[in-house]
């Protein structure tokens, strides 16, 4: 393939391995199908439709690809969950809700390389035998929705979508469906409800695993934008060859989205596990801001547990890691007590108040709880209220412990994983920075009611 040049100031770092982002910021590149085809687009779709479906699924299994949307679940295994006896139509949904704070990669794929996604979706749809696919794009990406609609129309005009694609006898339509500004639509069963025209109230699993009972109660495969793009490259390289990228059980490349207190925040596509957190900060991102030191990192989107700068992590194999040594993979990040999640790495230096940070995140989850389960609906606003009080200097030290207890009452007690997403940041920030957070509280407020609403409520009870 032709050598790739990048725009001035946008050259990938030498430590990067550009595969999914190969065409992002590329000189002479545009969104048109002509440009994409001249670069080899849709060759893998042509190959796929000549293959046995199971052979494609086997390649994806052999590649070791793990979902890039957050949970890191093996994509090939998920595809295998469609019941073999199924007689209903199968649907494929691409999750382009990209709403986990700290994550900003799917945006660039759709804006700059729409045909990579169309091809990835078409191959995946063929593999799981889904003739109707939806691309669920968050409402705040209006341009991406238009670009994808145009790309889909172009692909259809060339016979890559529509009836009897490439003479294979397989029909495939993709439609763009726009969300309307709710984070919970990123959760796959909430997304499905939303696509059915309802409030996005997540469904309980079991029994509503999408691969068995998804859209319209039919088997449905939901995958992230980046995951579906990888499928094309797996077909190109072969599953076994793809699996040589990255590290065992953590294969391929992934896009790290770095934000916060570094010199060069941005996107960096690397082989999974081949760079450490220290290299991300110091090499890829050009280091911390002058004169600052590292305080905390949220490594995988705002729902991941925070890592504290001076922590040591003892692994099962006897290795002891500092925060700087952690390889950016799924398994080690989990062994260090957090998660690689969506790839959103948020860096905080010593200028940041941890009480202020957790308050900001509490407000996010307060706003985004769908309200179906009592612990989450009631607990999320309580966490925000308590941390509001802490930040305002109106809290007692006990309030900090209460904040943690409210989080404990949500975790594990809800319909969907939003419960964990909301409680893990609070639990980890309080447990790791309890003394600092308590230092902004006042002991003489212990036992006193400072909240105006609570005062009113208590007065009513006494009367």
């Amino acid at each position, binding site marked *: 393939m032709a050598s790739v040049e990048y725009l001035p100031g946008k050259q990938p770092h030498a430590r990067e391995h550009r595969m999914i982002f190969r065409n992002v910021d590329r000189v002479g590149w545009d969104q048109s199908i002509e440009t994409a085809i001249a670069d080899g687009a849709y060759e893998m779709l042509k190959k796929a439709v000549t293959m046995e479906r199971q052979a494609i699924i086997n390649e994806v299994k052999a590649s070791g690809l793990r979902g890039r949307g957050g949970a890191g679940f093996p994509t090939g295994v998920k595809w295998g969950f469609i019941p073999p006896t199924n007689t209903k139509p199968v649907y494929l949904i691409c999750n382009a809700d990209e709403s986990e704070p700290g*994550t900003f990669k*799917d945006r660039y794929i759709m804006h700059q390389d729409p045909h990579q996604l169309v091809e990835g979706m078409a191959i995946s749809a063929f593999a799981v035998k889904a003739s109707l696919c939806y691309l669920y794009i968050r409402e705040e990406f209006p341009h991406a929705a238009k670009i994808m609609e145009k790309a889909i129309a172009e692909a259809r005009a060339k016979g890559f979508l529509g009836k009897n694609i490439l003479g294979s006898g397989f029909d495939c339509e993709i439609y763009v469906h726009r969300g*309307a500004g709710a984070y919970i639509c990123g959760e796959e069963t909430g997304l499905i409800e939303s696509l059915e025209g309802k409030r996005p109230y997540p469904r309980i699993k079991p029994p509503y695993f999408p691969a068995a009972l998804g859209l319209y109660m039919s088997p449905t495969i939901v995958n992230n934008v980046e995951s579906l793009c990888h499928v094309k490259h797996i077909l190109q390289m072969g599953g076994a060859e793809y699996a040589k990228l990255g590290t065992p059980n953590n294969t391929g490349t992934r896009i790290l989205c*770095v934000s*916060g207190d570094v010199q060069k925040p941005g996107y960096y596509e690397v082989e999974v596990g081949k760079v450490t957190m220290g290299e991300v900060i110091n090499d890829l991102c050009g280091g911390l801001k002058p004169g600052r030191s590292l305080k905390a990192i949220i490594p995988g989107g705002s729902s991941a547990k925070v890592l504290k700068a001076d922590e040591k992590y003892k692994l099962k194999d006897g290795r002891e890691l500092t925060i700087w040594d952690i390889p950016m993979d799924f398994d080690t990040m989990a062994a260090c007590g957090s998660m690689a999640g969506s790839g959103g790495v948020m860096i905080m230096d010593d200028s*940041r108040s941890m009480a202020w940070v957790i308050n*900001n995140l509490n407000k996010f989850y307060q706003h985004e709880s769908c309200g179906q389960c009592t612990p989450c609906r009631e607990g999320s606003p309580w966490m925000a209220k308590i941390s509001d009080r802490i930040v305002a200097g109106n809290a007692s030290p006990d309030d900090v412990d209460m904040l943690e207890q409210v989080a404990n009452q949500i975790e594990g007690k809800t319909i969907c994983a939003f419960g964990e997403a909301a409680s893990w940041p609070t639990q980890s920030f309080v447990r790791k920075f309890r003394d600092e957070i308590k230092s902004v509280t006042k002991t003489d407020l212990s036992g006193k009611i400072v909240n105006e609403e609570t005062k009113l409520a208590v007065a009513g009870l006494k009367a």
Partner: protein
Amino acid sequence: MEIPAELAARIDEAITHYPVSKRSAVLPVLHLLQEHFRFISEEAVAWTAAKLGLEPIKVLEVVTFYPGFRQEAPGKVHIRVCRTLACAMAGSYEVMNKFCEVANIDRSHTSHHHPIAKSDDGKFSIEFVECLASCGSAPVCLVEDDLHERLTTENLGDVLAKY
């Protein structure tokens, strides 16, 4: 409520994207109506319900849930400033205050269910929204459909001047 022919055609086309269930077209129909009328009126709810063969409450419950649907008209130019962590660390609260100062907007009466504040002349309206998935170029905002990145209290005057 007058639905121009071109809009009606786009709505009919959108409904064809959902061959299994017309109800799935609730969000796309509401988007098209909001794009045209700037907000979802009671009439628009009733119209959508009739169009898709649903009880009006099935449409209203969608409108009231999703922050992306508005039940009141915003200003001529609607601004959405990201409030979440990366943007807040990069100064989005200061940016919000400056926007309000420059555009003459009083946000003191906003609340969870009424997040939008308008300028007196009705030209601008503003609200805080959650992460816009552009945290690497924080702080960011959407002005109508366009993303503006790396905002500062100095450069946001230039952003407003474009509208």
